């Protein structure tokens, strides 16, 4: 069934179709509509879930940990300052291997205070042990809630997943979304059945004090789960594509990359706008393409190495800044491509929610192409920023 809905609505419907058991919630712009729609579903009797209105995001994540440890399928959503406030509890979830799914409506983390899209909220949580993915439209937002639970609950993974959707650009934008049937989702996602749960009948301990004798091994084990997640993400993508006809490519997706010599790594909705730019450049005969970075955690080092091996230069879009210079994605990409000699150029744009226009994306391709020709181009380029030249 096709419906014209916002990204937040799509996420809420995704959670409903996953038959989530517990939703601890706290509202924050631009995530609020997700929580409101889920509250409506519960109120209308469309969704049988324990909906908990908490007093803070820190409590949301604490309740999520407890409920998940008790064997419940847990969903919640947050954004920006809310994500920062639950930071301590984010770190508790992953090593305990609790497969919570939490949507993040990407929003600038103040100061200065703002409500629009930037990735400095989720990037700050990149070493908390959560898998992280970024979507480009409302359909992908819905589909990835379903896939996230499948990935999170896979026995080889058992890690929390954070699908991120661009604040306002998706959360408050309506577009047509194909809503899967409950039957089809049920056949893809079986009920969550963990091996050990907190149950008074069968006492267990989860999240106990752990001395140094064990922590190195536990951390190493979690790294193993991250490695396994790469295969599981690809498998789930294939299975989902067979059932629903929508193939998202796995950890990365590509657009017109077959014979591309210049590529731009994009995330979120900038991917979508970039498709139009690439089509136009291709009409002019330029061999350009897009590498859509879908999963930031685990980071797709192998995919990027393979894709970069045929390129003359690579541009990297970043929607947040590490204050030492470039963006976090740029630094990860450079690290992944260590030893390769092609120029890798960083393109910072859209911080604080500034509109990333086609004009800016054309400029990103132009600068990357010039670097390919051996011209001197700055490593880090601030697009559409007063006082900077690109």
């Amino acid at each position, binding site marked *: 069934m096709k419906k014209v809905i916002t990204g937040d609505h799509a996420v809420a419907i995704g959670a409903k179709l996953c038959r989530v058991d517990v939703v601890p919630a706290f509202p924050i712009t631009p995530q609020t509509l997700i929580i409101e729609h889920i509250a409506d579903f519960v109120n209308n009797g469309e969704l049988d879930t324990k909906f908990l209105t908490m007093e803070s995001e820190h409590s949301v994540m604490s309740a999520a940990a407890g409920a998940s440890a008790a064997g419940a399928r847990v969903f919640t959503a947050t954004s920006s300052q809310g994500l920062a406030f639950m930071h301590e509890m984010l770190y508790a979830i992953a090593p305990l291997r609790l497969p919570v799914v939490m949507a993040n409506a990407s929003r600038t983390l103040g100061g200065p205070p703002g409500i629009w899209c930037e990735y400095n909220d989720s990037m700050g949580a990149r070493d908390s042990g959560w898998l992280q993915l970024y979507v480009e439209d409302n359909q992908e937002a819905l589909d990835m809630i379903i896939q996230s639970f499948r990935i999170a609950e896979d026995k080889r993974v058992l890690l929390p997943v954070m699908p991120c959707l661009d604040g306002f650009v998706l959360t408050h934008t*309506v577009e047509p979304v194909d809503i899967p049937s409950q039957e089809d989702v049920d056949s893809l996602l079986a009920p969550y059945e963990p091996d050990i749960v907190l149950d008074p009948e069968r006492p267990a301990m989860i999240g106990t004090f752990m001395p140094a004798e064990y922590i190195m091994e536990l951390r190493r084990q979690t790294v193993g789960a991250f490695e396994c997640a790469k295969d599981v993400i690809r498998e789930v993508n294939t299975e989902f594509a067979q059932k629903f006809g929508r193939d998202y490519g796995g950890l990365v997706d590509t657009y017109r990359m077959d014979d591309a010599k210049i590529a731009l790594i994009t995330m979120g909705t900038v991917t979508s706008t970039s498709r139009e730019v690439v089509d136009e450049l291709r009409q002019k005969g330029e061999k350009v393409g897009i590498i859509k970075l879908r999963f930031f955690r685990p980071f797709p080092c192998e995919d990027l190495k393979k894709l970069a091996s045929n390129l003359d230069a690579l541009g990297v879009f970043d929607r947040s800044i590490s204050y030492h210079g470039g963006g976090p994605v740029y630094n990860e990409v450079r690290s992944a491509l260590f030893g390769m000699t092609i120029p890798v150029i960083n393109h910072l744009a859209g911080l604080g929610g500034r509109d990333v226009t086609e004009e800016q994306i054309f400029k990103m391709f132009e600068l990357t192409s010039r670097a390919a020709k051996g011209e001197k181009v700055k490593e880090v380029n601030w697009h559409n920023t007063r006082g900077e030249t690109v």
Partner: protein
Amino acid sequence: MFEVRFHGRGGQGAVMAAQTLAEAAVNEDNYAVAFPFFGAERRGAPVLAFTRIDAKKIYSKTQVYAPDCVIVLDDSLLDTIDVVSGLKPDGMVIINSKEDPDDIDLGISFRTATVNATSIALEILKAPITNTAILGAFAKATGLITIESLESSIKEKFGGKLGERAGERNALAARMAYEKTIIGTSRGIKKLESKKQWLPAYQDIPIGGALIEGKTQAGLIGPGSFIENKVSGWATFRPLRNKEKCTMCLLCWFYCPEGTIIRISDRGDLMTNYDYCKGCGICANECPVDAIKMTRARS
């Protein structure tokens, strides 16, 4: 691709209008997207919303800079905002106004349609929410969607949210506006004053964004706001304080989100700076002795 920009004020339903237009277009087998642009402030503040319509999937996720059509839900915006900015030369302007299009001065000549959506909304909906009426004018003026599919989208969207009867009344408002829309050409006499903006380079922005009272290119600036950015035009209601009843408990002073209530310490009195009062009514709501009444601002 056909791109529409809506100008309204928070609370008038510009966002719902943009979404309903997208739904109507999808019902006619098009692809469509709609999205708002909010500033930091809400009810009464100027808001933007956009709709894009095309036969094929739309990938662009940017704002609309060169619309084919501009829709103005409140003609008081014409005094402060250049609504035709970026409008394509063969574009269309649709305005909620009691005037004929030929009497409207946009500072430039455009194909223009007007309809008195406020009076239709007040008559049919008993509230000055003009979003459905103005969509009726859109159907008439552009012919891009039929009034029938618009009516069915309105019934579905508004009916689903506000109940079946509200859906039908809103559809009727659109139909009435459709029939009463007048199409003409705007005049181009007045000089457009572009809004003053202060956009410093990163080298010139004060450290940490800290602002003290001083002069910028956009005029005076003070803590919290541009001093010259008066918002009294947003207010539908404004507070009037009964000095006899007031006990000087200062709850209103404490709760005012804009700091517009000023203590005159030497007289033990209060005054309201209406230039910055948005008429939110929080002061009246908080007053424990009912000393503040909200009254119509533009009467």
